[in-house]
């Protein structure tokens, strides 16, 4: 049985369009209703900022501070079974943000992450299915990073090693040490890269079943859903059964094969930074063959599957934030979603009427940055 984590109260001050707000929240499903531009998504953004120390909309922090002010403040009271914690974030328009837990400063983002996790679905997530491989790599790496710090570190190291290696390939160096320096970065790339790939494959093994189940429930169909990890460097299809040595040697061989081509193109041509997660629906690639409706449902299913895996592996249910999710789904899929919602706390925004079968624990109407009872 997983631990429940609930945001029980939320205070905002000068956060985006919301001048001041004090909101009591409860367990289960809370729905924020309102027209466009009233501040519904802003509420989700504030909750996710406290958990992740960044916006899920990928905007710089200055954007979050109401124009003409120096800082925005978000405070959240979080209940973790019997424990109550106070998260406070001061987001500065200029300068360092300050984050506090129970009134004492927090220096590492991870310390908060382990106490409050959020799973977010936003309309942009359609890109998870429709967009290029980078979106799916980020999806996998974010999930991995929130599960274990070592994968966060591996992903960060990998990115840095890749930059060094590309700089080396671009440098046209005639130094005697060039070849052996390149070999050193090859080894580093292989070590960090295989660690990252092993993590992605293990995660994928857990995700696939959840994805299948989520999609089947939402779409009420028995169309098959398959995920495969596509890499340009492995000789065989990777399914997660490989040990780290196998991954290392395959990546090493690929780098050797491409040595001259890489020097010509002055770029690292293989590795986890070019891999993809291919999703097939009824045997056909979802990125190109699925209908828009199928893609939307699949994107939502990916987020819900990630949510389930995190719940399962960490033993606590993240707060689920669903932004404008009903506009993506027809009536029957919307009803199926609500049916399927996990036991934890869910915040959902919508512009319109709810499907008849949906009975939220709490409905709040948001107008002009305020709650109208």
């Amino acid at each position, binding site marked *: 049985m997983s631990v429940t984590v609930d945001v029980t109260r939320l205070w905002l001050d000068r956060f985006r369009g919301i001048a001041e707000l004090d909101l009591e929240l409860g367990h289960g499903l809370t729905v924020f209703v309102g027209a466009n531009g009233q501040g519904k998504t802003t509420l989700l953004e504030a909750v996710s900022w406290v958990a992740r120390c960044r916006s899920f909309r990928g905007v710089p922090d200055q954007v979050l501070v109401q124009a003409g002010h120096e800082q925005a403040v978000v405070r959240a009271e979080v209940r973790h079974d019997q424990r109550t914690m106070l998260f406070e974030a001061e987001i500065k328009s200029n300068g360092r943000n300050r984050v506090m837990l129970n009134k004492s400063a927090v220096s590492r983002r991870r310390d908060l992450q382990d106490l409050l996790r959020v799973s977010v679905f936003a309309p942009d997530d359609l890109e998870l299915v429709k967009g290029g491989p980078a979106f799916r790599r980020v999806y996998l790496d974010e999930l991995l990073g929130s599960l274990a710090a070592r994968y966060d570190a591996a992903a960060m190291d990998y990115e840095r090693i890749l930059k060094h290696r590309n700089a080396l390939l671009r440098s046209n160096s005639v130094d005697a*040490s060039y070849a052996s320096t390149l070999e050193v970065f090859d080894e*580093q790339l292989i070590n960090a890269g295989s660690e990252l790939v092993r993590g992605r494959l293990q995660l994928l093994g857990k995700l696939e079943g959840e994805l299948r189940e989520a999609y089947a429930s939402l779409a009420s169909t028995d169309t098959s859903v398959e995920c495969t990890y596509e890499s340009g460097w492995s000789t065989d299809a990777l399914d997660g059964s490989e040990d780290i040595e196998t991954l290392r040697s395959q990546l090493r061989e690929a780098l050797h094969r491409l040595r001259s081509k890489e020097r010509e193109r002055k770029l690292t041509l293989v590795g986890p930074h070019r891999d993809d997660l291919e999703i097939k629906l009824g045997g056909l690639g979802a990125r190109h063959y699925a209908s828009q409706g199928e893609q939307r449902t699949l994107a939502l299913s990916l987020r819900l599957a990630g949510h389930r895996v995190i719940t399962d592996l960490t033993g606590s249910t993240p707060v689920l934030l669903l932004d404008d999710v009903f506009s993506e789904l027809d009536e029957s899929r919307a009803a199926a979603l609500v049916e399927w919602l996990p036991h934890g706390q869910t915040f959902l925004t919508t512009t319109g009427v709810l499907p008849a079968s949906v009975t939220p624990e709490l409905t709040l109407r948001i107008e002009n940055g305020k709650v109208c009872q």
Partner: protein
Amino acid sequence: MSVYTEPLQALIDELNRLPGIGPKSAQRIAFHLLKIPKEDAARLAESIVVAKDRVHWCRVCFNVCDSDTCQFCADDGRDGRVVCVVEEARDIVAIERSGAFKGRYHVLQGAISPIEGIGPEQLRVRELVKRLEDDAITELILATNPNVEGDATASYLARLIKPIGVRVTRLASGLPQGGDLEFADEVTLGHALEGRREL
């Protein structure tokens, strides 16, 4: 287009070129310097010139010193067979504070970083190899930083030097002693577990 009078702007620009000092800090320091008594400013300028004049790189290990060789290279009581390789002279201070090392040092004056155009040729690697050929060195301890650049530098040196027949070791990365396990971050803990030793 400069808002400040020319000499002030020149000072700000110079300060801004220093590591870790951005435009805002440069402005703040410049205005501070304008406010302090003239003799204080002269003393600062003087100390920069004197340091620049009198401080050299040790001829053997490239530590900072004010004579031909540094205090560690000149000390006969130290074990010349073991050499600890560090990135910067300031790393020596940290190792000395531990009191656990009685050998000599070699300062690379940086780490391999292709992004910044720094390769082995830009570091004191050639001089290190020369020392290995000339002196009776039996062990090299690579104490470069535990990050991507430091690790790359250590692997490069290991590949280069092992064939010469010198023992090469890397500083263990792990838990800070006296540190509480609960406060060690997971990555460090992971490394400490991987590098665990028989007792």
